[in-house]
């Protein structure tokens, strides 16, 4: 009688630790994911490092003064330099505020139209067109704005000046309408309308359906429904979208450079053809800048970077708290 030896295989140890291939995979993916952190950090570090000398020399004057001059001797040594961004910062903020003020009502109306008024086929076409506009290169807006739009906008500016000139911001001493912050603001508004529209549309489409139907059931007109349900639900989302647009408008370079006259003097009169813009300043001065002036431009870039970063961060927080963000 032979006993067959019963071999019981040892039970496999159950572990929660991932295998080596998975560890590698997780490491690689995490590394890729952290690259955005690395890039943003490096941008701040390098621009800060290059611009440090100028920032230290100018101190707070870098954002409160508005002269931009540098004189060198024949050997290229810097004799005297003044760098101040005040006029450029004021100009950047003025242009982007004009853009947002024009763009927000139009975008909100068209988002409402897309969500609650347009029939299905029209909605599809309009969304395609709006998305397409968001993909247009900025140089296209710039050249189109300069050659096609600017004559009309100058005419509107004249009307504004004639009939609303008593309001300080529409007032001006010298009638120069060409390449004013107002023109730049209009071009920028056209560029940011698609963004604000698609964010608002996204937020409006998440308005609770039961409340919409409840409003209709109580006999509300469409506007009464929108006022009672959609606007309270979407208000902060629209503000977030507007700030996203503001951030985009602040960083826009080529389109603004084409339609704006850069002057190193703080100017709040939006119809006067003298404005400022940090991004355009960089393009304007880069071509023939000495190494020391380049450092000042890097510092200007750092300021612009931080400004747009803060605006975008606030915008994203607002959009996120009201729902899934749009594009």
């Amino acid at each position: 009688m032979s006993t067959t030896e019963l071999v019981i295989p040892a039970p496999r140890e159950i572990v929660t630790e991932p295998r080596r291939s998975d560890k590698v995979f997780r490491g690689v993916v995490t590394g890729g994911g952290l690259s955005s952190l690395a890039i943003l950090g490096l941008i701040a570090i390098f621009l800060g490092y290059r611009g440090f000398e100028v920032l230290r020399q100018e101190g707070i004057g870098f954002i409160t003064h508005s002269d931009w001059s540098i004189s060198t001797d024949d050997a290229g040594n810097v004799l005297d330099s003044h760098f101040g961004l005040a006029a450029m910062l004021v100009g950047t903020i003025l242009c982007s505020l004009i853009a947002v003020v024009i763009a927000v009502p139009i975008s909100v109306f068209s988002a409402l139209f897309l969500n609650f008024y347009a029939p299905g086929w029209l909605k599809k076409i309009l969304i395609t067109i709006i998305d397409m506009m968001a993909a247009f290169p900025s140089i296209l807006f710039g050249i189109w704005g300069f050659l096609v739009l600017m004559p009309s906008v100058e005419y509107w500016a004249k009307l504004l000046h004639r009939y609303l000139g008593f309001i300080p911001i529409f007032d001006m001493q010298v009638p120069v309408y060409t390449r004013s912050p107002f023109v730049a603001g209009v071009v920028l508004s056209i560029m940011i309308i698609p963004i604000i529209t698609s964010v608002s549309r996204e937020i409006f489409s998440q308005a609770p359906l039961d409340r919409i139907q409840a409003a209709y059931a109580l006999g509300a007109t469409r506007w009464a429904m929108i006022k009672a349900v959609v606007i309270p639900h979407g208000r902060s989302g629209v503000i977030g979208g507007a700030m996203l647009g503001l951030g985009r408008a602040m960083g826009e370079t080529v389109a603004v450079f084409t339609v704006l006259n850069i002057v190193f003097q703080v100017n709040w009169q939006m119809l006067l053809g003298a404005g400022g813009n940090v991004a355009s300043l960089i393009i304007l001065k880069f071509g023939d800048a000495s190494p020391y002036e380049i450092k000042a431009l890097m510092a200007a870039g750092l300021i612009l970077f931080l400004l747009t970063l803060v605006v975008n961060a606030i915008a994203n927080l607002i959009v996120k708290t009201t729902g899934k963000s749009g594009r």
Partner: protein
Amino acid sequence: MIPTPTKPWAASTKDRAVDGSIFALSLLSSYLLVFLTPLKGKLAYFVCFFLAYAIFTTAFKGVQRGNAAAKDALVNSLVAIGAIVTVIPAASILLTVLQKGLPGISFNLFKTDMSLATPTDPLTNGGLLHAITGTLTLMLLALIMSVPIGILTALYLTEIKGRFTGPIRFLVQAMSGVPSIVAGLFILSAILYPITKAYSGFMGALSLTILMIPTIARTSEEVLNLIPNELREAGTALGGTQWRTVAMIVLPAARSGLVTAVILGVARIAGETAPILLLTGGGDKVNPNAFNGPMGSLPYYIWKSFNAGSPEAITRAWAGLLVLVGLVLFLFTTARFLGARKVSK
């Protein structure tokens, strides 16, 4: 008796007649307004017509049904105006580009570069071959660098969901708002000045990569989120490691959506001008080597021609814009077409 179906909500003949007469009335008054006031131009007709239409419908509804209906009618016309105003610039831009760009398009344009011509020469001299090859090279290089990083970021956000998910999603969004000129300055300060000290196509491609990563990452994340979790569970149940599941199941399932994401990223950077102006040097000759020597590109060509200012140069700029817009629209349409079916079988 069989009741005949009726549609009491449908517009009656009387309603249609009223609508039609309001339309005609506002058309008439827009002509009168433009005739009587100093307003001028096509746009003035347009504005007057819509204002008149809004006022007439509001007044009519107010008389017919009362205050609430009047407000509703007013908002009705306002939102329609909003949508039209949104679309007008797009139409105007496309029409202008076609109208002004077509005279500058010739076969010669795609055959020669600008090495023996200046922007102010007659249109028969020189072309934009160098610009097209340059733009394609820049796009290809940016693609090679940004696709892995973008998709890895999206995978981290959807598959690993680790400790950093929240911060990374936030940072990617912040990164999509980085102005293009800042990306250019960054490459300038971090690589061009300290290391290579020379303009080249590769520098331009690096800055474009920074601008492209967030678009790819965010669109890919949306696509990967659409992949049903059952697929991942099935992969794990078959004994696959996470790596095998992602590589063999999740990514192939999301393939066409990922392609859409990549194309949208390319469309985003195709016309990017500011960093190109800072970094590539903008040569006038076909330059196949992105690592050595200045490289031309469509935005640079357009910029240079536009700034030259003579009528020939402006026509050149419009022709370049037409080619660039054609390229962007082609990419955009392809992305739309593929995006219509986000998850392939």
